[in-house]
């Protein structure tokens, strides 16, 4: 299987590579449009800041490429947020795959920001979750969130705010948590994404 990881200088692609290695897969980290278009699966991880990341994607022409892909595509954390329409992080226009804006958490003061640590998914019936049984605990680190929308297939609650923790539309998936850091649950989700979708 030909797996591509989008290279855009935002985030620790190494942890995603390590997680793929543990599942027995190799991947190419690339910003080459042709390589991305020809991959069987595309992963779009990210840790960082939205406007800087978008500037890099535009400079490389990836803003167009990423929205026209046909193979299964998985955005992670900032990657998922960049797949939405806009972000309140420095008022950034993002890729617009999911027609919903990314918002900044506004929570009672006793709730720390970032939302950091392990939280549960309320997941719906979707092939991505076919390998899960019972409660799904995942590792989150984020200060911005995607509200519930038509593409929401899993939600999570923090500080009274319920938000989208997994999105799905056509070949595009996004997860707010880090499957590469979410223990057995995360490995199962990556495995399903690679082998079943």
């Amino acid at each position, binding site marked *: 299987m030909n797996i591509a990881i989008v290279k855009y200088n935002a985030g*620790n692609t*190494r*942890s995603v590579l*390590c*997680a793929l*290695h*543990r599942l027995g897969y190799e991947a190419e980290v690339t910003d080459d449009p042709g390589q991305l278009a020809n991959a069987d699966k595309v992963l779009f991880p990210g*840790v*960082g*800041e939205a406007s800087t990341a978008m500037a890099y994607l535009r400079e490389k022409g990836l803003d167009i490429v990423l929205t026209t892909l046909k193979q299964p595509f998985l955005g992670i954390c900032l990657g998922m947020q960049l797949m939405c329409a806009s972000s309140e992080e420095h008022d950034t226009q993002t890729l617009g795959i999911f027609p919903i804006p990314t918002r900044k958490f506004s929570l009672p*003061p006793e709730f*720390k*920001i*970032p*939302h*950091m*640590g*392990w*939280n*549960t998914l309320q997941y719906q019936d979707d092939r991505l979750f076919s390998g899960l049984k019972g*409660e799904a*605990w995942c*590792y989150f*680190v984020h200060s911005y969130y995607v509200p519930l929308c038509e593409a929401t297939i899993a939600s999570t*609650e*923090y500080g009274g705010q319920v938000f989208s923790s997994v999105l799905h539309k056509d070949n595009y998936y996004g997860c707010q948590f*880090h499957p*590469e*850091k*979410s*223990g*057995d649950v*995360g*490995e199962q989700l990556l495995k399903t994404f690679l082998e079943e979708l």
Partner: protein
Amino acid sequence: MLAKRIIPCLDVRDGRTVKGVNFVNLRDAGDAVELAQAYSRYGADELTFLDITATVENRSTFRSLVRSIADHISIPFTVGGGIRNEADVAALLDSGADKISINSQAVARPQAIDELALHFGSQCVVCAIDARRNPAFDNGAEEGWEVYVHGGRTGTGLDVISWAKEAYSRGAGEILLTSMEHDGVKGGFAVDLTRRVSEAVGIPVIASGGAGKMEHFYEVFTKGKADAALAASIFHFHEIDIPELKIFLEQHDITMRR
């Protein structure tokens, strides 16, 4: 609901884990990668590795250890010890660490927190604070605590609460608060100090130093308002096993990852 985190801490010297009582009399508690894998299997929520020798010649050993840990475990981990500059941080993150913790370096040059947060993101910058009781810092009924550096040997004249606030405002993503008074003594965490720090900052606080029994974790999560609790020897020597601890805390209405 967001779970409280249990974090075993592995002090590493030359690729092996060691932990002493009050930072002296080091005892070898085993191979770091093996321990990391075991903790990951037994339900640790996160791991912390501190390079306690932190000499220049051993730095590359530590980096290859970090790489090996990243290859083997699927939960987040933080590394610290001897980080001097951005190049050190970049090397550790490239090796697969999720977060780095800085301590003496941040006190010596607070601007370093801003720079690291800007370049790598707040989420990976943990400001470690070693605190020691100092009556000269008392404020009315509130006990005064001073920030110590260099493994707890050197006082800095900084008040712990003010320093935690400053680290937060400069962009630290988490505070790792260790009470030097409680570390290794197993008499419980510095609950009151942890609560004060947790209330003073808008970022998660990891309580460290003093865990001896399961009730201590309950105390620091409730009265201490800690977001996470860190311990070493009690886990390494199986005085408390993590699965058992998590069941105990869940029975006491603390949200735990299962």
